């Protein structure tokens, strides 16, 4: 036997947790603690059937409501509402377990989950919502039974047959759901909590490079972007972002490059990528080095230095396509702009300046000087590290002469500086290196900790050549060692799920809706059905319920008035007299020993019609209904049930 009240209680518990968990990071301490406490208290009290006084709870709810009412401000109207919802949910649990109360719990939980979508559009939302809707649907049906008879116990078969009703309803609602999914407008970013500040604050990618600003670089596994493309060798996975061409002290930043620059990518194969950039605060787009044309995102400018810049900043999750040429060389001539890339800070440690001059003298042309810089770096036995970084004054000098530890910023900025001092035009390129390839989704997952800075040196006669000085470290093997890894780990599978969610649901916008319509329209035009088959196609939804009915699905089995009356009567017998109906017993047998005139009259009228092969007369029907409603009003049997031995 299955106790209905326990089932509903468990469902209420589950549903409220599903509403509470997604809101957890955004709640104030009071509701955050109140709900779990209320749940625990209810669990503890459930057995003892002890309830807190209703008036006390109403007063409490009112107090909480007023409290949050005055907290609501124009700048933050949502926060108090969300906190209020959770707090009320907690209070509801302490109340008596009536079906009305349960319904409130279910609704509040649904509101809580809906409110969480104001803050976050996680793929888990779908899971939570799905679970909640299923439970909600089942609970609604069970609540109708619970309302009739709070202490009902159901047999397993009865319970299962009861479950078919909500599950069938859910099944029927799926086509409607899909239809709405395609039609209804949606938001690609959370309505309330602009995530712009969440990812970029700790971002590995920044618009300036300043070695020595911190002693260590924190790990940030946040997703930077995902790129859908073919799998590539790890050494080629340079995701180009911003070009930094100006050095001031130790800070590298970007300014507009001279307009005269005209470079074209060198020879290499073309790789198309579809990129999904997480919302951030940067205007710069990333793409495989060197990026070519950008599609599917208006307002993107490709600078002469291959930096992709968005004209306007948006907090949206951006999707765009880029065709990149897999090469480390950009061919062209600098001509007059050469001086622009040779500028060095005025205030510079003499050692660096002297080292630069030595390097300049070591070769006759740019290529030889670059080789000399490499030789110098390799000779210094520098180590790649993300901790114990020099962060005093003259960090570069410390890095090169004494500590010999540094991250890519140290390597790149010192390299570029020395190149400029040696008379070779150089600039920094900020972006990402490597990425995990998800076989499931066919894309690269690039996290913020893969942010990387490298150098581009201009070699007269060739053009800009990518130089990654970090690879000259003695422990260069560790740099990006995980680059290009991937395959089938659990986290990657989870990420693939998020990816599909973002791609199919969140960034599914009007443009794609229209595209879908067009596609469907074209497909349908291509389909030729013989005359009359269309009708058949339309009839299918109408036929399905009948098929289900023939299949014996109880939810669609129509019951007559008489049958409903008998069902009600048996339910009341069970409630009032504790009589269990068995299929082999007639009403007369069931009610033997009950000395209630109503019960006897019901049985007599019912049997008199049924076993004389006629339907109930209107006045009989009225009388029977009257008896049922009288029984329903009865809270307990008028006298303890007496069963005589038969």
């Amino acid at each position, binding site marked *: 036997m299955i106790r209905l009240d326990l089932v509903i209680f468990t469902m209420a518990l589950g549903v409220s947790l599903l509403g509470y968990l997604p809101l957890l990071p955004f709640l104030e301490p009071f509701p955050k603690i109140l709900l779990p406490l209320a749940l625990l208290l209810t669990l503890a009290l459930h057995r003892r059937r002890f309830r807190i006084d209703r008036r006390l709870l109403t007063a409490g709810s009112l107090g909480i409501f007023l409290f949050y009412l005055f907290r609501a401000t124009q700048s933050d109207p949502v926060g108090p509402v969300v906190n209020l919802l959770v707090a009320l949910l907690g209070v509801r649990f302490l109340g008596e377990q009536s079906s009305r109360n349960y319904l409130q719990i279910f609704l509040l939980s649904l509101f809580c989950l809906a409110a969480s979508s104001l803050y976050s559009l996680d793929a888990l939302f779908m899971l939570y919502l799905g679970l909640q809707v299923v439970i909600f649907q089942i609970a609604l049906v069970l609540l109708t039974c619970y309302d009739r008879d709070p202490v009902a116990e159901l047999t397993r078969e009865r319970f299962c047959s009861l479950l078919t009703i909500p599950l069938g309803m859910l099944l029927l609602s799926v086509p409607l759901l899909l239809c709405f999914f395609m039609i209804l407008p949606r938001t690609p970013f959370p309505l309330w909590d602009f995530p712009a500040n969440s990812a970029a604050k700790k971002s590995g990618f920044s618009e300036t490079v300043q070695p020595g600003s911190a002693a260590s670089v924190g790990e940030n596994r946040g997703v930077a972007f995902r790129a859908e493309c073919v799998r590539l060798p790890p050494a080629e996975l340079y995701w180009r972002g911003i070009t930094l061409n100006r050095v001031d002290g130790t800070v590298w930043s970007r300014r507009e490059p001279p307009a005269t620059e005209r470079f074209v990518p060198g020879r290499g194969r073309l790789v198309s990528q579809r990129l999904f950039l997480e919302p951030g605060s940067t205007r710069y787009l990333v793409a495989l080095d060197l990026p070519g044309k950008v599609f599917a995102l208006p307002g993107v400018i490709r600078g002469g230095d291959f930096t992709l810049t968005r004209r306007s900043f948006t907090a949206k999750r951006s999707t765009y396509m880029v065709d990149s040429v897999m090469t480390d060389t950009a061919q062209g001539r600098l001509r007059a702009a050469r001086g622009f890339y040779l500028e060095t800070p005025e205030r510079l440690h003499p050692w660096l300046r002297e080292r630069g001059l030595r390097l300049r003298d070591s070769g006759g042309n740019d290529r030889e000087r670059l080789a000399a810089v490499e030789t110098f770096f390799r000779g210094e036995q520098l180590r790649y590290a993300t901790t114990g970084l020099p962060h005093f004054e003259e960090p570069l000098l410390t890095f090169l002469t004494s500590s010999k530890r540094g991250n890519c910023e140290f390597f790149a900025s010192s390299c570029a500086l020395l190149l400029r001092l040696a008379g070779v035009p150089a600039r920094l390129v900020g972006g990402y290196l490597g990425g995990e390839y998800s076989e499931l989704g066919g894309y690269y997952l690039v996290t913020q900790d893969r942010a990387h800075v490298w150098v581009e040196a201009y070699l007269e006669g060739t053009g800009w050549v990518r130089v990654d000085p970090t690879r000259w470290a003695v422990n260069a093997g560790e740099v990006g060692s995980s680059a290009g890894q991937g395959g089938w780990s659990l986290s990657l599978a989870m990420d693939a799920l998020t990816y599909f969610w973002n791609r199919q649901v969140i960034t599914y916008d009007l443009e794609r809706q229209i595209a879908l319509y067009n596609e469907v329209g074209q497909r349908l035009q291509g389909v030729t059905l013989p005359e009359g088959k269309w009708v058949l196609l339309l009839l299918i939804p109408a036929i399905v319920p009948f098929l289900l009915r023939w299949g014996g699905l109880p939810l669609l089995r129509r*019951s*007559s008035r*008489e*049958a409903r009356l*008998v069902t009600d009567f048996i339910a009341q017998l069970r409630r009032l007299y504790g009589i269990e109906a*068995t*299929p*082999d*017993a*007639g*009403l*007369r*047998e069931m009610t033997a020993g009950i000395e209630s005139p109503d019960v006897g009259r019901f049985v*007599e*009228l019912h*049997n*008199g019609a*049924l*076993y*004389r*092969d006629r339907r109930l007369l209107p006045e009989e029907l009225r009388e029977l209904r009257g008896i049922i409603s009288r029984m329903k009003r009865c809270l307990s049997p008028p006298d303890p049930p007496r069963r005589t031995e038969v």
Partner: protein
Amino acid sequence: MNLERNTQNLPRRDELLAVLETLTGALTGKGRTIRLCVTALLAGGNILLEDIPGLGKTTLALALSRVLGLTFGRIQCTSDLLPADITGLSIFNRDDNRFTFIRGPLFNNLLLVDEINRAMPKSQSALLEAMEERKVTVEGITYDLPSPFLVVATQNPVEQVGTHPLPESQLDRFLICTGIGYPPEEMEKKIIRHGSIRGELEQLSPVISLDALREAQQAVRERVFLSEKVTEYLFRIVAATRSHPLISCGLSTRAGINLAEAARANAYLEGREYVIPEDVKELATPVGAHRLIVGADQDGLDKEQLLRSILREIPVPLV
């Protein structure tokens, strides 16, 4: 209101209730058996009491005959009982100078056949044929048996030496087969203390006339309605016995007819114009159990329990 109307439509019911009341008062602790006897009488069937001697079978039959105002005949079966001992025989009448037919004990309204299984099969079938046909043909002349006619046969299920157990086909001719059982403890003590009540039975006077009894029988046949739903239920019971794995031969169509008749009589006694499934259910065991033929290796099986287990499987039509 409904109840009163029913009673008006069921003539002579009050008198039969009075019969039941009188009998139950006289024979303490035999209420169920008495009721079954009256049911059998109303349905026009015969009854077989299967129990050990000394539990009041004869007393019951005597009391019945007295209260119903029926003539009473008794046959004590022995292995040398001849058919003529039952039906009667022709004797030469010297005064009239011709053979005169002397009616045997069969020509009574109520016939007690004691220890029927001690009689030879030849005598048994003579008796049973008479029960079925309600006619006796002796020496070419057919005599009608009196109406109403009720045979109360008894047999001892324990003693098997020197008996000729009734074949199943013969058992089928009894509408109802039931035991009597020991009376409840208190009641038995009372009976022991006061001794046999045979003498008191002499004091009982008829509470119903023969005509009234016939009218009641007719009312049971004609006034009590058997609906399609209940017929269906009854048929399901019969059909279930035929497909049961432990039963080699289920209930016959005659059994079905008898069950319907008995259910009608039961409904009549309860003052209903229609049969409800409970009537069928209540009488299924006394009417059906003794007719079941179980498989050869299931000899020890209690047929009543078997039938009750079948009844539990069959849903009662509620809508």
